């Protein structure tokens, strides 16, 4: 067996090693212009090997078992030339938490015929809601991960996820909504209905009038903004290498009233698992607690360098990428808003365009808000175009409150968030 061969080779040639194996099945349906376009079924597998020799570390990946041995050899040769001294070892075997709600057999049992049904349900809903379907994707995935390292660590887990994205048009406005779940409990007509509602409310958008500086961010907008401009600053690697604006701010108050907790064990969390992508047990880490910056996030290597422990935040985009530090599920908590305070004199933003262009090093951002509304005197009026500019560290100081409409958007679990400190032009 190829795996045994490469393990044998690595035992001999490397001081430490790790093999990450991923196997997945994906079923998706795509709809375009009011019609079902195609259904796709795919299987994939891949392997990522890290080898350590004399504290040098090398990484090699391959999509095929047949190339495993050569990937192992490559990882070892790269490790021999590496002079970074980053090869500090890998996690030791530990007890893993029992994380609930990340695998649902019903998702594994979804068939192409089922997807066909979901597609038809979505199309029907669009008709009933009086909107045009521009684009829609429903994706169901099962993933098996297995991790082995030279410390005798062996970890395996299966996870499922189903997700939908619906983009619709009404008059001169378009809007999209998306939702993912670890369980087969997404109601496609409900998500389609939400997308339709936003599109209808956005049509006939006008200009911004008057002076408004407070913004209400939907969970999607919060995630877009935070992921691109704030979360990178929490990385222990960025702190050590001088790339984080928060590096000397531990124990300081950076956001009065805000609590941000990274929780890799969050039940049904989109990024929950028993162990991170290096085999460290998943856990809860308070990043900001009641306004104070308490912890950075670490993986095994940077945890060692910082003379602390890994916080279980090692993440791989897929088998072919090297692990790096990334949040799992960031739970955002703030005091509740009273209805009067929250829903008045503010600009509500559903999603951002261009969030990936923001500046994680300075914290500055300048983004276009989509499906934005002026909320004033109990009314919600759509705005055609609005640009929000500011610095995330000032925004953090001016977060007022959060409401209870909590949902998870990618890496962030939050309600709508109200904050000042934005500069707005439209």
């Amino acid at each position: 067996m190829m795996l045994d061969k490469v393990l044998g080779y690595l035992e001999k040639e490397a001081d430490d090693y790790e093999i990450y194996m991923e196997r997945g099945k994906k079923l998706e349906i795509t709809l375009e212009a009011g019609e079902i376009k195609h259904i796709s079924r795919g299987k994939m597998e891949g392997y990522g090997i890290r080898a350590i020799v004399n504290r040098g570390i090398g990484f090699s990946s391959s999509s095929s078992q047949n190339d495993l041995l050569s990937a192992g050899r490559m990882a070892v040769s790269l490790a021999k030339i590496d002079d970074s001294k980053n090869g500090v070892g890998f996690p030791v075997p530990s007890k893993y938490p029992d994380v609930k709600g990340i695998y649902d057999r019903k998702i594994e049992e979804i068939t192409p015929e089922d997807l066909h049904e979901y597609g038809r349900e979505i199309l029907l809903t669009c008709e009933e809601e009086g909107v045009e379907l521009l684009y829609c994707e429903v994706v169901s995935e099962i993933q098996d991960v297995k991790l082995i390292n030279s410390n005798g660590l062996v970890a395996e887990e299966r996870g499922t996820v189903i997700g939908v994205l619906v983009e619709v048009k009404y008059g001169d406005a378009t809007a999209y909504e998306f939702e993912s779940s670890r369980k087969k409990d997404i109601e496609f007509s409900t998500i389609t209905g939400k997308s339709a509602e936003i599109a209808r409310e956005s049509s006939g958008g006008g200009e911004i009038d008057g002076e408004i500086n407070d913004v209400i961010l939907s969970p999607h907008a919060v995630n877009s903004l935070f992921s691109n401009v704030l979360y990178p600053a929490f990385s222990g690697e960025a702190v050590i290498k001088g790339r984080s604006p928060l590096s000397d701010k531990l124990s300081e108050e950076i956001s009065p009233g805000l609590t941000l907790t990274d929780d890799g064990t969050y039940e049904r969390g989109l990024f929950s698992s028993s162990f991170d992508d290096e085999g460290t047990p998943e856990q809860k880490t308070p990043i900001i607690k009641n306004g104070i910056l308490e912890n950075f996030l670490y993986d095994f290597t940077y945890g060692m360098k910082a003379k602390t422990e890994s916080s279980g935040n090692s993440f791989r985009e897929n088998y072919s990428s090297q692990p790096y530090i990334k949040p799992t599920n960031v739970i955002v908590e703030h005091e509740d808003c009273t209805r009067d305070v929250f829903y008045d004199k503010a600009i509500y933003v559903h999603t951002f365009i261009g969030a990936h262009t923001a500046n994680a090093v300075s914290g500055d951002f300048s983004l276009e808000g989509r499906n934005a509304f002026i909320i004033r005197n109990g009314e919600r009026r759509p705005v055609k175009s609005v640009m929000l500019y500011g610095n995330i560290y000032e925004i953090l100081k001016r977060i007022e409150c959060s409401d209870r409409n909590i949902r998870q958007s990618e890496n962030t679990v939050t309600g709508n968030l109200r904050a000042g400190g934005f500069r707005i032009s439209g």
Partner: protein
Amino acid sequence: MVSLLECHLHSDRMAKAEFYDIRRIHGKSLSITIENGKVENFSYKTGGAIGVRALVNGRWGYARGNSESDIKKLLQDAESIASILERGNGKIKEVKTAETRIRVKPEEEPADIDIETKVKILKDIEKTLKKDEIINTRVIYFENIRTLEYTDSSGIESFYSLPRIGVILSSIAKRSGLMQQYSKRRFEIGGFEIFKKNDFYRMAEETSDIALKLLDASSPPGGKMKVVLDPGLAGVFVHEALGHAVEGDLILQGNSILRGRKGEIIASEEVNVFDDPGLREYGFYPFDDEGVPSEKRGIIKDGTLVGYLNSRETAVELGGDGGNGRGEGSNPILVRMSNTFMSEGDWRFEELLEYVKNGIYLVGSRGGQTSPGDGVFQFHAEYGYIVKNGELDNMVRDVSLSGLTLELLKHIKVGKDLKFNPGICGKNGQSVPVSDGAPHIATIALVGGA
């Protein structure tokens, strides 16, 4: 390697599909990062995938596997999946696909250079980034080769192998708690000759100098104003605001403001825009992922919209032969750009500044995004300069530009100095290499600032 042609279904069974095609992709890449003087990441990746699609009763089924998958089984799977769907209107243009077998060779084969030499060169360049008040320096290097084999039910088989290489230089400057970052990059189709064709030492000096200058730059003003965009930023505009809006699949979805507007004047008459996959810029390919040979396509001629970009599917309704059908790995085909550019006009840079008189000059791009159905775009400049009385004044940082595409296009004045910039374009979760190009341009837009 099994020839794809051997996988065609012949008389041993009746193929249900009206059409099918098979793509086998393989990639291998090496990347090296030097950060703060040390090698940080050595990584070598290989990967392969196979994507098969079948058209049955006007509906598409896709089956995807890795390089070892049984292609015949994948084809059967694609057909059976397509058969689940009710009858549909899916069509494909029968075109003369490329009968090409080409290995694009670099001038200097990176595989011939040992890794220690590469590390030494990169470390030397990285040293040049270090200056006073520069607290983080990084050089990222990659070299890769992508091979694509394509065949469809017409039986023609084609192949290419394409090398790419790139270097990114980046510096972070810090003073009194304020931090700013700047980076420069060069990505090319080719090999190690990139180090002869580019002076990375000079680029490293410039990178750190600009990072330092950004510490003193002010926030930009906000509001609608006249702007001059450098070729880097103008190129991103061409890509984001215009390029995506002429992608045939978005047009047919009803998600583009340029739908049904062929023949209309949509821009100033100085504007000419093309997409050309045959140019050896970063978006180059000899044939697309549907086997269609490269050809230059006109999008805007003298301000009039003359063409869309198409795949073989969208070409059935929108005309032409396709040529812009691309999928990342074995992913389903989408209409994508290749090398998209605005050609030269008549204005010199100084003349553009004089025309703007009081406004802003924006340089370099950190990327952008568009909502083509609304005709709204956003993109981000690396930095800029206030333009006062037709001359460059204070430096500003973190400026973003947004606006309505059609408005911006009507007011464009086009410069004389066309330059191309490499990039990676993302659409529906799929990334492909592209380039965009433009000269300096002047126009009116909404600037993001205080």
